[in-house]
C-alpha cells in the first residue's frame, strides 16, 4: 500500500478525536430543543476539559485531547443553533400580520401533493410584491391551491393570501414541520400561473418518468414505482399508503440510504466493468448520486444518505479507513449545522435512528437470532441471520419515533421487511432502468416494467395481507419526549454489548432489549406509561 499523498496528518490512534462530531451535534440539538440546558452542558464540558488539562489520568490518554477540546465543539454547536435561531425572517414576520393578498414569483420546490384543500407544494420565493411594491426576496412558502398543474423547478406566479401555518386540532405543529423545510409561511392561492413557459428540468424529468413508467405498468404499480424512484408518493392511493404504514414497510417508498446505496452500487460497478479509472468512477458515482437526490426533491433522509455515501466514496478514493459510526456522526454534525431544525423532522429522525440502530444493535441481535430462531441450523445461514437482525434493529430503533409521530407502530414490520427489503432493491433498480430506457426506447421499457410490475404486485400484496391482520399495528397515542428518551435508555446496554461490553453477554442484552421494546409498546399502547 503506497503512502497517501497530501499533507502528513494521521488522526487515528493514539490521538482520538472521534467524539468531536457527536459533541458538536449535541451542542446543536441542545441549543435548538432545550436552549436552557446549553450553559450547563458547556460548563460540564469545561469542567471535563479543565480536569483533563490538570489531571493526566482523568481520561484515557488517547482521549485527552478530545476532552480538552470538548468545550470548543459543544460551544460551537450551541453557537450554530443560536446563529440559525437569531437569523431574521421577514417573510415569517410579514405572514404573522396576515396582510392579505400578495403576489409571488418563484420556483416550485417540491412535487405537488394532495392536501385537505386541493394541492400543496413548496415554492422558493424569488420576488414578493405587496400593495404593488416588491418588498421581499428569498425564503420559501407552502402554496395551497385548488389545482396545481406544475412540476419541480417550474417558475410560477402565485396570487394569494399569506399567513402563518396554524397548529392543527390534533396538536400537530405545522409551523415547526414547515420550518424543518425552511418554509416560513403558507399562501392560500387564488391562482398559480406558469411564468413565460419556464419549465424546470426536474419537473420535466418527473413528467417523462411518469410517461416511461406508463409503458407496461398498471397505474397503481406505476404510482408505487414512481414513489420509490422519485420519492413522489402523490399518486399512490391513500388506502394503499395506509397498508404500507400498518405493515411497517413505508420506508421502502422514502428516498433513503437503501435507494442511494442501490444507485451507487449500480453506477459504481457498471463503471468498473468498463474499466473506468478509480477517481473518475468515484466522482461520476458521487455526481449521479447528488443529481438523483436533487431530482427526488432532496428530502432530509436522502440528504443524510447522500452525505454518508460521499464520505464512504471519498474515503475509498483518499485511502482512508471507512468508519460507518464516525461517518454517521460527522454527517449529523454537517447536516444539522446547515439546518438544525431537521432535528424535528420525522423523516430525518427515522433515517438517522434506523442507521444508528443497525450499526449499534445489529451485532447483539444477530447473536440472539442465531441462538434462538436459527438454533436448529448447525451453521445458521448468514444471509437470513443478517436480514433478520438488520430488520429487527431498524424496527426497534425507529419504534419510538414512529409511535410519537404517527400514533401507530407496526408489529408485523419485523417480518414483512424480511421480504419487502430484498424485493425493494430489484424494484428500484428496474424502476430506475425503466425510467431511463422508457425515455430513450419505449419498446425496451415494456419488458423491464412488466417484470417490475410482478415484483411490485407482490410488494403491494404483502402490504395488504399483513395490514389486514387485526394485530398488525398497535396504536400509541400521547407518546412524549420523555417516553422516547426512556425507550432509548433501555437500548443502551444492548448497544454497548455489541461494541464495548463483553460479547458473550450480547444475546442476553439483546433479549432484554426485545422484551423491553415489547413491554414499552404494550404499556404505551395501553396508555399505561
Amino acid at each position, binding site marked *: 500500500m503506497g503512502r497517501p499523498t497530501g*499533507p502528513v*496528518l*494521521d*488522526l487515528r*490512534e*493514539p*490521538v482520538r*478525536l472521534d467524539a*468531536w462530531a457527536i459533541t*458538536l451535534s449535541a451542542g446543536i440539538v441542545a441549543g435548538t430543543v432545550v436552549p436552557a440546558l446549553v450553559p450547563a452542558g458547556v460548563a460540564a464540558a469545561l469542567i471535563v476539559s479543565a480536569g*483533563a*488539562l*490538570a489531571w*493526566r489520568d482523568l481520561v484515557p*490518554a*488517547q482521549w*485527552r*485531547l478530545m476532552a*480538552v*477540546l470538548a468545550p*470548543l*465543539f459543544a460551544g*460551537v454547536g450551541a*453557537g*450554530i443553533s443560536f*446563529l*440559525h435561531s437569531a*437569523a*431574521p*425572517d*421577514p*417573510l*415569517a*414576520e*410579514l405572514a404573522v*400580520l*396576515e*396582510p*392579505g393578498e400578495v403576489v409571488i414569483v418563484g420556483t416550485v420546490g417540491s412535487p405537488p401533493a394532495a392536501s385537505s384543500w386541493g394541492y400543496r407544494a413548496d415554492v*422558493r*420565493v424569488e420576488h414578493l410584491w*405587496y*400593495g404593488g*411594491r*416588491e*418588498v*421581499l*426576496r*428569498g*425564503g*420559501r412558502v407552502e402554496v395551497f391551491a385548488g389545482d396545481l398543474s406544475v412540476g419541480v423547478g417550474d417558475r410560477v406566479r402565485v396570487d394569494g393570501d399569506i399567513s402563518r401555518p396554524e397548529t392543527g386540532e390534533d396538536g400537530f405543529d405545522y409551523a415547526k414541520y414547515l420550518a424543518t423545510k*425552511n418554509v*416560513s409561511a403558507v399562501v392560500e392561492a387564488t391562482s398559480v400561473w406558469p411564468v413565460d413557459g419556464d419549465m424546470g428540468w426536474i419537473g420535466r424529468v418527473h413528467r417523462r418518468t411518469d410517461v416511461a413508467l406508463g409503458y407496461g405498468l398498471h397505474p397503481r404499480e406505476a404510482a408505487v414505482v414512481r414513489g420509490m424512484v422519485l420519492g413522489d408518493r402523490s399518486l399512490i392511493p391513500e388506502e394503499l399508503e395506509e397498508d404500507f404504514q400498518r405493515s411497517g414497510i413505508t420506508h421502502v417508498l422514502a428516498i433513503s440510504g437503501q435507494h442511494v446505496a442501490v444507485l451507487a452500487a449500480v453506477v459504481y460497478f457498471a463503471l468498473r466493468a468498463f474499466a473506468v479509472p478509480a477517481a473518475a468512477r468515484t466522482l461520476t458515482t458521487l455526481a449521479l448520486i447528488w443529481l438523483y437526490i436533487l431530482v427526488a426533491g432532496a428530502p432530509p433522509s436522502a440528504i443524510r444518505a447522500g452525505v454518508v455515501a460521499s464520505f464512504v466514496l471519498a474515503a475509498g478514493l483518499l485511502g482512508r479507513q471507512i468508519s460507518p459510526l464516525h461517518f454517521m456522526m460527522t454527517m449529523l*454534525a*454537517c447536516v444539522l*449545522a*446547515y*439546518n438544525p431544525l431537521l432535528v424535528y423532522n420525522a423523516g430525518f429522525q427515522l433515517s438517522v435512528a434506523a442507521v444508528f440502530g443497525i450499526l449499534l444493535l445489529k451485532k447483539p441481535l444477530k447473536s440472539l437470532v442465531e441462538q434462538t430462531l436459527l438454533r436448529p441450523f448447525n451453521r445458521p445461514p448468514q444471509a437470513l441471520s443478517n436480514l433478520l437482525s438488520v430488520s429487527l434493529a431498524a424496527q426497534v430503533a425507529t419504534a419510538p419515533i414512529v409511535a410519537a409521530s404517527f400514533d401507530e407502530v407496526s408489529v408485523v414490520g419485523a417480518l414483512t421487511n424480511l421480504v419487502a427489503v430484498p424485493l425493494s432493491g430489484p424494484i428500484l433498480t428496474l424502476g430506475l432502468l425503466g425510467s431511463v430506457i422508457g425515455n430513450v426506447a419505449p419498446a425496451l421499457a415494456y419488458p423491464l416494467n412488466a417484470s417490475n410490475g410482478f415484483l411490485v404486485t407482490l410488494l403491494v400484496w404483502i402490504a395488504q395481507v399483513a395490514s389486514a391482520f387485526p394485530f398488525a399495528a398497535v396504536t400509541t397515542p400521547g407518546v412524549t419526549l420523555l417516553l422516547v428518551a426512556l425507550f432509548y435508555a433501555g437500548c443502551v446496554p444492548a448497544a454497548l454489548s455489541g461494541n464495548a461490553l463483553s460479547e458473550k453477554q450480547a444475546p442476553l442484552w439483546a433479549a432484554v432489549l426485545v422484551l423491553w421494546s415489547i413491554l414499552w409498546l404494550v404499556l404505551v399502547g395501553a396508555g399505561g406509561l
Partner: protein
Amino acid sequence: MRREAFETATRRGSASQAFPTGAFARYRPQVVVAVLVVIVLVGGAFYASRVSESAPRVVYSFSLEEVEAQAQDSLQVNINTADVEELDELPEVGPATAEAIVEHRRTSGMFRSVQELEEIEGIGPTTLEEIEPFATV
C-alpha cells in the same frame, strides 16, 4: 510501538508538568484540523441562515409596521362609504342592521363618529364595543 511512543511522549517531563506545556505544539495538526472543521461548519451555518436564497431578505424598506397598519386598514369598514355588503361584515351586524345604517346615512347625513352608530336600532353599547375596532369614519 506507536502507542508506546505516544505514551512516552505524554509522560515526558514530571507529573507536575501539565498538559499545555508543549502539548499544543505536539498536537498542532489535530488542533488545526479541529479549528478548520469548526470554521467551515460555522461558515456554512452563517451562509445557510443569512446569505443563501433560503434566507428571506427585505428589498424595499416597507416597514412591517406600515404593512400592519395597511392590514388593519383593510379590515376596517368606513361606515360613511361602505355599502350594505361591506357593513354586513361588521361583527353583530346583519343585513337588516346594515340596511338601517345606510338608511340613517341617507336621512341624517354622514356619521361624525363611530359612536353615533348607537342611534341605529339593533346596535346597543355591547354591540358597539365589538364593532368599534373594525369601523372607521
